[in-house]
Structure formats: structure tokens, C-alpha cells
């Protein structure tokens, strides 16, 4: 009996070790497989991004920060420059914008950023309350933008022109015109 028992032990031991040896590599093999699949999935995305990076570099590198801003967002940045030229820091400006609803939301946020610390109130219509605000500015969005986000408000150009004619124009910009309301200089 002792002899038989010994035989069984010797026969089983190598099989177990062999099994263990194969299993030992399982984590590394699994991770290597996952890694290869992962990189195969990542490669096309990175390749596309590389193209975008090259394009962005060619378009913007070598430009000053101001030129980059203007090229990336020409309407909002140009309007902001026009308004800034006419409204002092700390002043308040009511912007009457011929722009679509979504575009108006965009310009409202964008001009608030670009013109801070000036106060900016933007309305997509030709009439708005201007109490407590010393300046008024008007601009018309580009035709391309208006096709994407059509104007939906009320715009009476003749009435607006008549009203603006009574105000002092302080800056005639490329995209926006700025006027001083009574008491605007005191701000």
C-alpha cells in the first residue's frame, strides 16, 4: 500500500506543475491582448486627431493671440473690439443684435467674456430698455450665420435709424456701431 500511494503522488505532481506554469502566464497574456486591442481601437482616433493638429498648427501658428482669436471667432471678436473702442471699462452697453436666437445666446456669453469689466446686455431685437446703461451698440450677424440660425425677433430698421440719429455716435466699427446715450459719459 505505501508503494501504491507513492506512485500516485509522483504521477500527479508534474501534471499540476505543468498546469500551474501555463496559468502563470495567463495575466500577462490577457493584458497584452487587451493592450493590443486597445491600441488598435485608439490608433484611428489618434490618426484623425493628428490631421486636425497639423491643420490647426498650419492655420494658427505664427499668429499673435489677438489674431488667433479673430480668426477663430471673427464676428464676436470683431464686435467686441468695436464695442470696446467706444465704451470705457466699467461702462454699460446695450447691444441690439440682428442675430438668431441661438446665436444671440452665444454672443451674449461671448461678449460678456470679451468685454469684461464692461456690462453687456444683448437683445435680438431693434428696441430694448436702456435704463441705467450709458451706451448702445448695434450689429448685424453675417449672412452665413443667419442661414444657420435665422433671425426670429422684431426688427424695425427705420425706427432704429430714427432713434440712433438722435444719439451721438462714438465709434463706427467694422461690424458694430456704438452710440452714447444721455449720461453715458458720466459712467
Amino acid at each position, binding site marked *: 500500500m505505501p508503494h501504491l500511494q507513492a506512485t500516485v503522488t509522483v504521477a500527479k505532481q508534474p501534471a499540476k506543475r505543468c498546469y500551474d506554469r501555463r*496559468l*502563470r*502566464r*495567463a*495575466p*500577462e497574456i*490577457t*493584458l497584452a491582448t*487587451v*493592450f493590443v*486591442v*486597445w*491600441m488598435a*481601437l*485608439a490608433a484611428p*482616433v*489618434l490618426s484623425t*486627431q*493628428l490631421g*486636425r*493638429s*497639423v491643420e*490647426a*498648427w498650419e*492655420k*494658427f*501658428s505664427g499668429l499673435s*493671440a489677438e489674431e*488667433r*482669436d479673430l480668426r*477663430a*471667432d471673427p464676428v464676436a471678436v470683431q464686435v467686441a473690439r468695436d464695442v470696446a473702442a467706444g465704451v470705457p471699462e466699467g461702462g454699460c452697453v446695450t447691444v441690439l443684435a440682428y442675430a438668431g436666437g441661438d446665436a444671440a*445666446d452665444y454672443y*451674449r*456669453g*461671448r461678449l*460678456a*467674456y470679451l468685454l*469684461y*469689466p464692461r*456690462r*453687456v*446686455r444683448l437683445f435680438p431685437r431693434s428696441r430694448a430698455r436702456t435704463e441705467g446703461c450709458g451706451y448702445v451698440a448695434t450689429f448685424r450677424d453675417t449672412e452665413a450665420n443667419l442661414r444657420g440660425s435665422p433671425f426670429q425677433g422684431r426688427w424695425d430698421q427705420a425706427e432704429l435709424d430714427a432713434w440712433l440719429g438722435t444719439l451721438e455716435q462714438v465709434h463706427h466699427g467694422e461690424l458694430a456701431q456704438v452710440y452714447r446715450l444721455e449720461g453715458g459719459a458720466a459712467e
Partner: protein
Amino acid sequence: MIYLGLLLTCVAGWLLLPRDYEWGLAAKLSFAFATGAAAISVEMFVLDLAGIGWGRATVILPWIALAGWRGYRDGAALLEPIWPWRVKMPGLTSHVLVAIVLVPVFVWMPFERAMPLISWDAWAIWMLKAKAFYADGTLSGYLARHEEFVGQPGYPLLIPLYVAFLYVMEGGVADGAAKVISPCFSLALLGVFHHFVRRWTPPVPALAFTAMLASVPMVDHLGFELAGYAGTALSLYFVAAAGFIYEWYREGGVVNLAGACLAATAAAWTKNEGQFFLAAVLVLAAFQLFRTCEKHPAMNWAWLAIPGLILGPWALVRSSHGIEAAGFTPLIDFEGGLFGIALRRLLSMGFDTQLYNLTFLLLLASIVGALVLRMRPLFWILPGLAIWQFAGALLAYATGRNEIQWWLGTSAARILAQIAPLALMAPAVVFGEWAGRSRPTEPEMSRDAQKRNAPATQGRRRRGRRWSART
């Protein structure tokens, strides 16, 4: 001067990090940047509360004083592990993997550096606040005018105040240059992630997991294209807090407890989602302190009060201006239908390999793996925190504060990208456990293998044990 500000950030963070801890150079730089950015933003907040103002000298002087004290106390040891002979050179496989980690950075970096500040949240929320704080020289100017702005005036201040610090250094608003902080947070995220994963897995798999994280498309998009957002910083503090709390459960050590509390506080100081995460970390910390109270000095409880010291004053300042934190209350405003819509959308996005590669699939696989391996209960901290954040996002969407499809369309991908690095930590732990169990026991290992798996820092015993084969 913006770049000098970034350098000062790393120096400030370096001065705050404990000396007696096992850091690699890349890890220490990453933690230094993360710590420095958070500390400087808190410093700016305190200076404003004290009415001192933000001149270059007033902002930098405390750090010069701290540098003098640390230099006097620690001497040259303060510079560890910056000395080149202490930096271990990895093998060929590791070199290749480091190169793979850096490929997405090199692919994205020219795009980030070339583009001006163009993304909505950047200039509507984070960078607007930074510009306003810098222009006004105080918080109160913007906060008093908060009703004029479409952004979220109640959002926390880490990014705005840190960027305001960079503007103070620059002497003007330079948003195109300042948004480089996003790639910096991305790099720090990789360094911190690797630091923890290296503790749980051997060196090569740790780099492999880091390379995988570096190439998750939405994580890169968040870090490089949406530069000026707070998402990448939040991811970084999530990973740091999760790593520290897990290490504290695993090994103890007040450094890990302090790291978890501070990083979770920084997350809450970065974005509102971080406050949800902070709650989970504090509950985990309190539970462990109660459970093992005999091992901990009572002073350890003090770390749990840190969030209140920073977030409390901010809540007071915010409410004194009548500003809400977020404008909704999860659970109280709950709508079941919206929860279902958000769940379906987040799950379909999460498993989109074009957005997150296999991140969330690996998270599920790690949960199955942990069940099969019957891992210790502490493992569940990591997937638990990722799922907690996921659930928090669902609860926020279920409040119906905004039109749900628009809200999901504009934020869900970013929310998941914030969680993705956290979600990749659990697979690393499971892999480390599996690899450890599959390896021969120590006496069976060859001398080479033993050398390979030895902790990186020999000699004086330090906190933070790295992975070694376990049975």
C-alpha cells in the same frame, strides 16, 4: 510669465509634499503640480478674504518663507528624488511603453497650443471668472454682478483662482497661454495614475495601464480640446483621492488618510461633482477610523475637518451674494423617467469604443474578476467610487433642471470622461492581484525575478509599498 507661474506651482506643491514617502520623480512632479494648483487657489481665496489683495509679492512671499523653512529643516533631502542617480532607468519594454504613453500627448499638444480659447464652458464659466477676479482684484466684483452672466457663478473656484494667479504672474489676461493648465493637469493625471497603479501591479503592466489611459479619446478631448474646463483637474483629484483612500485601507498611514481627504477636498473645490465624491471619501474615511479606532490617534479625525475649512467659507461667501451652488437638489427633485433616459444614454456612450475605448468594459470585467478571485472587501472601494460618481451624475440629470436631451448632449460625454481614469484603477488592482496569485512563491522565484519585483526605493523604510508577488 505664465510658464514661470506653472513652475512656481510645481515648486509650491513640492514644498507641501511629505519627504518620507516613496515617490518617483514623475510621480512627485505630478503630485506637486496637483497640490500646488490647489494650494495656490486656496491661498488666493484666503488673501481675498483677508483683504490683502493679489500682488505678485503677496502671492509668492508665503512660498518663499515655506521654502526657507523646508530648506532649513530638510536640507538637500528636500530635492529628493530629483538627483539623477536616484532616477531608475527602465528597461526596453518600459521605454517603448513610455513612448506610447507620450504619443497622444504629442499628437494633441500642437492642436491645444495652436488653438485660441474657443470652448463654451471655458469662457462662459471658468475663464470668465478668472478674468473677472483678476480684473477686479477680488472675488466680490464678479459675485455682486452674477445675475448678468450666463455661466454658473456658484461653481467652485480652484480653476478660476488658479488662472487668476497665472494672470497676476503675467501682469495681464492671457487666456490662450493660461489654458495650457489643462494639458498640465492631463500630464499630472497620468503621473498620479501611474504612481498608484505601480503600487498594485509590476512595472510593465503599470505603464501599459497608463498608456491605455493616455489614449482614451474623450479623456484626451477633455484635456486638450476643451482646455480651460475643469474636467481634467477633477479627474486628477478623483484618481488621487481614490488611490490614497484605497492605500490607506490597504496599508494605513496618516499620509494616505491626509492625501485622500485633501485630494477629495480639491475635487470638491474644483467642481460640484467633486462634492458628491468628497462625501463618499469622508464616509469611507470615517468608517475606517471608527472600525480601527484603537490604531489611530484622535488627531487623525482632524483630517476629516479639512473640507469644511475651505468649502465652508466659500459657501458663506456664495450665499452672502445670494448665489446657489448648482440650482438643483439631487434626490429631492427626482424624476424617474429622466433617470431612465439618462441611464440609457450614459450606458450607450460609456461602451462606445470611439469615446472611451474599453474603459468601462474593463471596469465590468474587473468586477467579475474580483468576484472570481474573491478579492478582499477593500477592492470594492475603487469600482464603488466610480459607480458612485456615475450614480451622482444620473441623479443630477434626473432633477430635470435643463431639457434632458440638450443637457445630456452637452455634458454626458464630459461627465463620463471625468470618471474614466477612476474606472481604470479597478482593472489594474484586479490584474495585480491575479498576477500576484499566478506567480510562484518567493522561494521559487529566480533571483532576477525577485530583483525585478523589489520595491524601487531600497534602504530607509518609506511609506507606500510597491507591488510584489503575493500568494
